[in-house]
């Protein structure tokens, strides 16, 4: 067994333990930190699966951006102490997840992947090929140019939508601002206005 495979199993095991911690721990901040660990280790998994660019993207986006976003969301929506983090029916959820796991693992193990061929004629038994950044960039801007542009529009719309949803009526500048802050006061939201 070579070093690459060994490091894959090691990283995969640590990442699964971290993922279990995300859904099992009682402390929401530990949950977020373990999620950052699990997602960054997935970046390493991409590296070991020979997708270099994706590893960089994963660590930049999940390690850098998503983690900050989640920690801020946890900070702003601080759950009260002693409040149950799980539903009462969590054993049922565990049972459902185990059934799902059984089906997925059965599908993965029972299928004869060595007989599988892709449209390009490669077989699953072949050695994996490193995907170079240059090829990926060329493909992204030629074959996948239209989806790429649509993705950028999706990001823009999500940004504007998030801004519009998250800003409260009270802090909105321009007409209606005074009205909104009066509403905020009536609803007893004044104490949280300073948080944002």
């Amino acid at each position: 067994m070579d070093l690459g495979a060994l490091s894959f199993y090691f990283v995969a095991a640590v990442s699964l333990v971290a993922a279990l911690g995300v859904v099992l721990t009682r402390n929401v901040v530990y949950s977020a930190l373990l999620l950052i660990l699990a997602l960054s280790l997935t970046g390493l998994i991409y590296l070991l699966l020979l997708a270099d660019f994706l590893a960089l993207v994963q660590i930049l986006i999940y390690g850098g951006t998503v983690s900050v976003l989640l920690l801020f969301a946890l900070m702003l929506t601080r759950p009260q102490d002693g409040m149950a983090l799980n539903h009462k029916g969590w054993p049922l959820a565990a049972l459902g997840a185990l059934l799902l796991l059984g089906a997925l693992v059965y599908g993965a193990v029972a299928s004869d992947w060595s007989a599988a061929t892709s449209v390009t004629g490669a077989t699953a038994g072949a050695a994996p090929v490193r995907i170079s950044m240059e090829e990926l960039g060329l493909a992204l801007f030629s074959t996948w140019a239209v989806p790429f542009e649509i993705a950028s529009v999706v990001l823009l719309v999500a940004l504007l939508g998030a801004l519009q949803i998250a800003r409260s009526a009270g802090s909105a500048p321009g007409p209606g601002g005074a009205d909104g802050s009066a509403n905020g006061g009536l609803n007893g939201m004044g104490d949280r206005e300073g948080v944002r």
Partner: protein
Amino acid sequence: MVPLEHVLVFSALMFAIGAYGVMARRNAVLVFMAVELMLNAVAINLVAFATRLDPQHFSGVVFAIFVITVAAAELGLGLAIVLRVYRMQSSVNVDELDTLRW
């Protein structure tokens, strides 16, 4: 070289952990974290198939990039909604969001 099956089993485990989190957690932010785990598991699958079965076109890697893009957009929008709900209800427990229940 890691066999394809082992990568698939790893990603199935991570997907099941995420699915459990989505079903069991009450806090909306924790539900989002579990959704991230599930999306991640899917992206691992796509990359494994791309490097092994489709090395000429590597569509799976491109798909994974789009999955990450959409996940980032979904998280930003979802957390904005969570903040809004918290301001209205002082709680982000998903079982208390029953305003639309008839």
